[in-house]
C-alpha cells in the first residue's frame, strides 16, 4: 500500500501553468524530499495533496483510496464530503510560517483540532497533547503564547499540533526557511526523530544537509515538472539532469 | 370642573391632555432659564385649560417641521404652539375658536439703511423667517407674485433674530406677538416697521375629525375667556396689554 500517489497532476493559475503532469508515489515510512528553485511549484504540489489547492487534472490517492480524479477542474470521484475529509485527516501539514493560532497557548494549539474535529474528550486530548509537546522538547512552554516563543520553538509546536491529529503522512513546506540559522537545527532534529520513528514524510526543503541525511529519495522539481528522482547520494554527487546540476551548484 | 368626567376618555392618555408645541417661540412657548421648564402664553393657557377640564397636562416639545404630522399620527392630543388658523390648515385639521390676536410683522434693525415700509418693498434683500410658518407662506406668496428677494429659512425663530443682529440678513418676517417680545427690551437692536392686518389669529389645532375633544376645548376656552383667565395671562405675558379680546370679536 502506498501512502500518497499522484498521477498526472496539472494545475494552472490563470495563464500560468504551475504543475505539469506531476506523478509521484510515496511509500509507507518513506521520507521524500522535494528540492528545486523558487516558483517551481513545490508548494502548490504539496498543497494540492491537502485540498488547499484544487487541481485541474490528475488523480490523487491517499492510502490507495482514490480521492480526486479531476478533469478540467471537476472532480469525478463521487464520495460523501465527510468521507473524503476523513481520508484527508491522514495528511498532516507543517507550513513555512508556522501558522500557529496566536490567541491560543501552546497546549490549546495542540489540543484544538483533536477536541473539535476528532471529538476526543478533553482530558484525553490534553494528555496526548502534553506527550507530544514533551516530545518536541517544549514541556516547559505549555502555557506560553506563540508570540512568546522563538521561531524554532513555534515550528516545533506546529509539528506537535499536526501530529496530534495522528496523521499517517506529514507534509513539510520549507519548515526551516523562516528561521534564524541558529534555530534551524532544533527543528531538523525533531524531524529526523520523526523519520526515525517511521513517519511517512514529504518535505520541501532548501536544507541539503537534511535531505542527504534523512531522505530515502530526493525529487528535483523545476518549472512545474519533476525533472529527476534519485537517492540523495546519487543526486548530490552525480545529478543526471543539467538543470539539477545547475541548481545544486548555486545552493551548495 | 364640570367637564372632568366627559373629557377623560377623549385624550390619548387617560386623564392627561398631551400638548404638542415647538418650544422656542418666545413669549408664546419657550424654556425658562434652566433650559427645561416650559413657560409662556400657550403653556399658561394649556395649564388653565387642563385644569378646567379636570386633566393633567403634558407638554411635548416638537420641531415645527413635522408638528402637524405629529398630531395626525396621534403623538399628542392637540397643538398649542401659536398655530395661525389658515384655510389650508382648516381643510386638513380641526381648530378651536381663535384665542389670541396676531398679525404678520416686518422687523428691521433700528436705524437700518433699509427703507422698506412693508414686505412687498423687500426687493433684492435677504429676508429671514422660520420655515413652514405663516411667515414662510406669506413671503412665498409674494415671491409667486413676482417679488424678488433672497429667502433665509431657519428651524427656530431665534436664529432669525441672531442673523439680523449679525447683519447676515436684512429683515425678518414673523408673528407680531414674537416681534413685540424681541423689540421690548430698551437695548433691543430691533424695531417693528410694519404690521399686517390683525387677522392672523391663533387657535388650538387637532386631528381632523376629533370633534369631541375640539368641542371640549372650545367649551373650556370659552370658560377661560368668561372668567378673565385669558386676559390675566395676556397681561402677564405682554406687559399689561390685552391681546386676547380682539380674537373673540
Amino acid at each position, binding site marked *: 500500500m502506498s501512502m500518497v500517489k499522484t498521477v498526472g497532476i496539472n494545475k494552472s493559475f490563470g495563464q500560468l501553468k504551475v504543475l505539469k503532469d506531476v506523478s509521484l508515489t510515496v511509500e509507507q515510512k518513506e521520507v521524500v524530499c522535494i528540492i528545486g528553485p523558487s516558483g517551481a511549484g513545490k508548494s502548490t504540489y504539496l*498543497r494540492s495533496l*491537502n*485540498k*488547499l489547492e484544487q487541481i485541474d487534472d490528475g488523480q490523487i490517492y491517499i492510502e490507495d483510496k482514490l480521492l480526486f480524479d479531476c478533469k478540467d477542474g471537476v472532480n469525478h470521484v463521487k464520495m460523501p464530503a465527510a468521507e473524503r*475529509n476523513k481520508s*484527508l*485527516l491522514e*495528511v*498532516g*501539514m507543517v*507550513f513555512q*510560517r*508556522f*501558522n*500557529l*493560532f*496566536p*490567541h*491560543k497557548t501552546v497546549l490549546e494549539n495542540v489540543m*484544538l*483540532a483533536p477536541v*473539535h*474535529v476528532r471529538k476526543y474528550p478533553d482530558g484525553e486530548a490534553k494528555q496526548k497533547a502534553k506527550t507530544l509537546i514533551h516530545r518536541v522538547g517544549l514541556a516547559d512552554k505549555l502555557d506560553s*503564547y*506563540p*508570540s512568546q516563543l522563538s521561531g524554532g520553538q513555534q515550528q516545533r509546536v*506546529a509539528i506537535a*499540533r*499536526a501530529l496530534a*491529529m495522528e496523521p499517517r503522512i506529514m507534509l513539510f513546506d520549507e519548515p526551516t526557511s523562516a528561521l534564524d540559522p541558529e534555530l534551524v537545527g532544533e527543528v531538523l532534529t525533531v524531524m529526523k526523530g520523526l523519520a526515525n520513528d517511521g513517519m511517512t514524510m514529504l518535505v520541501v526543503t532548501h536544507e541539503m544537509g537534511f535531505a542527504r541525511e534523512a531522505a530515502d529519495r530526493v525529487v528535483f522539481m523545476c518549472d512545474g515538472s519533476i525533472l529527476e528522482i534519485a537517492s540523495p547520494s546519487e543526486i548530490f554527487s552525480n545529478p543526471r539532469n543539467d538543470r539539477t546540476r545547475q541548481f545544486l551548484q548555486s545552493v551548495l | 370642573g364640570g367637564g372632568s368626567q366627559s373629557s377623560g376618555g377623549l385624550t*390619548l*392618555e387617560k386623564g392627561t391632555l*398631551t400638548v404638542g408645541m*415647538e*418650544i*422656542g417661540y*418666545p413669549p408664546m412657548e*419657550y*424654556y*425658562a*432659564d*434652566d*433650559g*427645561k421648564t416650559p413657560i409662556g402664553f400657550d403653556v399658561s393657557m394649556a395649564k388653565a385649560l387642563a385644569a378646567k377640564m379636570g386633566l393633567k397636562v*403634558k407638554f*411635548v*416639545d*416638537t*420641531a415645527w*417641521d*413635522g408638528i402637524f*404630522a405629529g398630531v395626525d*399620527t*396621534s*403623538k*399628542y392630543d392637540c397643538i398649542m404652539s401659536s398655530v395661525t388658523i389658515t384655510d389650508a390648515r382648516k381643510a386638513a385639521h380641526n381648530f378651536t375658536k381663535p384665542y389670541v390676536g396676531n398679525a404678520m410683522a416686518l422687523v428691521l434693525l433700528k436705524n437700518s439703511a433699509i427703507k422698506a415700509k412693508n414686505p412687498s418693498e423687500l426687493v433684492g434683500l435677504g429676508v429671514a423667517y422660520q420655515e413652514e410658518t405663516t411667515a414662510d407662506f406669506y413671503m412665498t406668496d409674494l415671491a409667486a407674485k413676482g417679488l424678488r428677494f433672497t429667502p433665509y429659512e431657519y*428651524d*427656530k425663530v*431665534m436664529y432669525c433674530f441672531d442673523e439680523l443682529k449679525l447683519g447676515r440678513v436684512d429683515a425678518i418676517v414673523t408673528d407680531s406677538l414674537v416681534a413685540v417680545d424681541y423689540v421690548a427690551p430698551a437695548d433691543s437692536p430691533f424695531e417693528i416697521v410694519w404690521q399686517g392686518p390683525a387677522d392672523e389669529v391663533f387657535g388650538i389645532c387637532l386631528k381632523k375629525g376629533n370633534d369631541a375633544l375640539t368641542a371640549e376645548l372650545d367649551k373650556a376656552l370659552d370658560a377661560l375667556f368668561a372668567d378673565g383667565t385669558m386676559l390675566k395671562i395676556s397681561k402677564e405675558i405682554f406687559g399689561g396689554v390685552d391681546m386676547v379680546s380682539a380674537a373673540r370679536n
Partner: protein
Amino acid sequence: MDTLQKILSWVPPLLGGARVTIGLTLLAVSAGVILSLFLALGKMSKYKWVNKFCSAYIFFFRGTPLLMQLYFIYYALPLMLPVFIIRTGDQFFDRFIPAFIAFALNSAAYCAEIIRAAIQSIDKGQFEASRALGLSYPLTMSLVVVPQAIRRLIPPIGNEFIMVLKDASLVSMIALVDITKATRNIEGSTRSALVYIPAMILYLIITAVFTFAFHKLEKKYSVYE
C-alpha cells in the same frame, strides 16, 4: 460668581441630554454591530443576490447623509406608509425609537465594512492551518478567525462609537433632547451663547472616557501579543 451659579444650573439639563446621547449611541452601535455581522458575512457570501443586497445596503447608507436618513425615517416614511408610524404610548420613545432605528441602520453599514476588513486582515495562513487540521468553515470562523478579529475590531468600532456619539447631535432636529438640543434650549431661553462652553466640555469628557474605555478593552484582548 453669578455666572458660575448660572453655569451650574445648566448642568442638570445638560446631563439629562447626555443620558439621551449616550443611551442612543450605546443602543444604536450595539444593534448596528449585530446587524453588521450579517451584512459583512453577506457581502463576503458567494450567493450573488445576498451579496448584491448587502453591497447595495452598505452603499446606500454610507452614500447618503445621516441627517437625510433621519428625516426620511422619522418624517417621510410614516407619512407615506402609515405602517411605519411608531406608537408606544410614550412621547419620548415615539421619537427615540425611530432615531435608534435610523442610527442603528446607518451604523450597521459602517460596522459591516469594519468587520469585513478585520476578517480579511486575518492571515490567510490561519485559514490554511485550520483547513489542514480538518476544521470545518464554521469551526474555523468561531474558534480561530472571530476571536482574533475581535481584537482588531475594537479600535475601529470604538472610533465608530465616538462618531455616532457626535452624530447623535442630529436628534436635536427631531426635538429629542440630547446634549445639543439641551444646549440650544438653554441658548434660546438665556439668549446667550455661554452654554456652548460647558456643553463642549461635556462632549469632550464623554469622548475621552469612552476612548479610554475602548483602549482598556483593547489591551485586555491583547494578552497574547
